[in-house]
């Protein structure tokens, strides 16, 4: 089990515990804890409803072309912007700290 801290849009931190052997991604984790993340496209990097800012220095997988392309069309994008659905939860990400981007829809 690892713990991920997700700061919601009201600046409240939530410590989310999760196993790493289920192939979960960050969007799915947020949804399972009923945080306000829609995950509209189901994890295809096609909607940006799981847009987060990464606040800690964890080694994240490189963003794919698809993720870059979607972030190009998203709003409130910053240098530390990522799509939660593209961040697969692994042991290395224990202690990861992210903040939900504003709801642009």
């Amino acid at each position, binding site marked *: 089990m690892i713990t991920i801290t997700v700061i919601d849009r009201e600046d409240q931190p939530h410590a989310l515990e999760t196993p790493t052997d289920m192939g979960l991604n960050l969007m799915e984790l947020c949804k399972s804890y009923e945080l306000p993340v829609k995950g509209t496209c189901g994890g295809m990097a096609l909607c940006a409803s799981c847009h987060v800012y990464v606040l800690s220095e964890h080694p994240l997988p490189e963003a794919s072309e698809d993720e870059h392309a979607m972030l*190009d069309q998203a709003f409130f994008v910053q240098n530390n912007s990522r799509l939660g659905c593209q961040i697969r939860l692994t042991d290395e990400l224990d202690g990861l700290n992210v903040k939900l981007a*504003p709801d642009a829809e």
Partner: protein
Amino acid sequence: MRILPPLTHKIEPLSAGNYSRLFFVYSGMLYSFEHSSEQKSIETDIIIIGAGPVGLFAVFEAGLLKMRCQLVDVLSQPGGQLTEIYPKKPIYDIPGCPGVLAADLVQNLLRQIEPFHPGFTLGERATTVEKQADGRWQVVTDRGTVLTAPVIFIAGGLGCFEPRKPPIDNIEQFEEKGVEYFVRNPEIYRNQRVVIAGGGDSALDWTIYLANVARELTLIHRRTEFRGALDSVEKVQHLAQTGKIKIVTNAQVTGLQGNSKLEHVVVQHDTEGEFKLEADHFVPLFGLTPKLGPIAEWGLAVDKGAIEVNTLDYSTNVPGIFAIGDINTYPGKLKLILCGFHEATLACQSAFAIANPGKKLSFKYTTVTGIDGLPTTAAL
């Protein structure tokens, strides 16, 4: 949502009058469907709201029971998300298809339902529903088409696709006064000063097209790189090098100014700070996003944006209205196309009883009855 290139299709007027036909070319064969245009009244057996895969397949199952269907969709082409969002993505969990591109699945469904002659009301949003004195439902679209039927299937998927609006405080104040989220009529930009924002295919395509129409054209993009088709990117860069257009990268539009109409666009550049551009039109092209839309006000039981149904036949709390596919919810719901197909099939059984009161339904396999218009044994 990101917009990927549309399917090859065109809408051509058939002849004088309010009818037109919708043509699809698939594997060298031409398929055509009736397409209603504005201000028309249509009577049918089932009004299907949403022309995604589940709505399309419902036409087939309804057709087996000799019920006619009219499909309504806010998008201008059938296929829903599959066409609009991920046409080039392979789908692996359609029974009997070891892998099929989303766009191809839509084309196959169109081919499968063609024998049942469904009607299409595309590019129109179903806005109101009302029960008539004769017990049938009347659905009216935002373009004034009136549809009447004893049964409604809501196969709305994620909801209605709407353009994503950039988070600029007063943007709504300038809608119809210089801000357009779609290019509907390129001629309104003739000899005007136009600012386009976005970095995807639609922003690039319209930049290329409007370069010869607008008096001044500026394309604003948040990043340095453009992600559109390589050919389009090169064309846009060439237009900028030859002085036909201006490109401002690493910048975003953050404000709009004007009195009765748009006069200035405020641009925030990552390193150079804020500056103003004179503009008659601002066209932000950031793709589409789905919203539940007017369906939310139809008196249906809704839980977290999905319509609650009885899994016996996927009926809603309102008799005569069914909800199938991603838009419904029930214990154990999975948002899968294959589940939507099953839901459509069962919903048709109850729809038959409503559309044909007193008539008995005898269940028949397609292997027994065959289907006029689909390939026969010899052709398969």
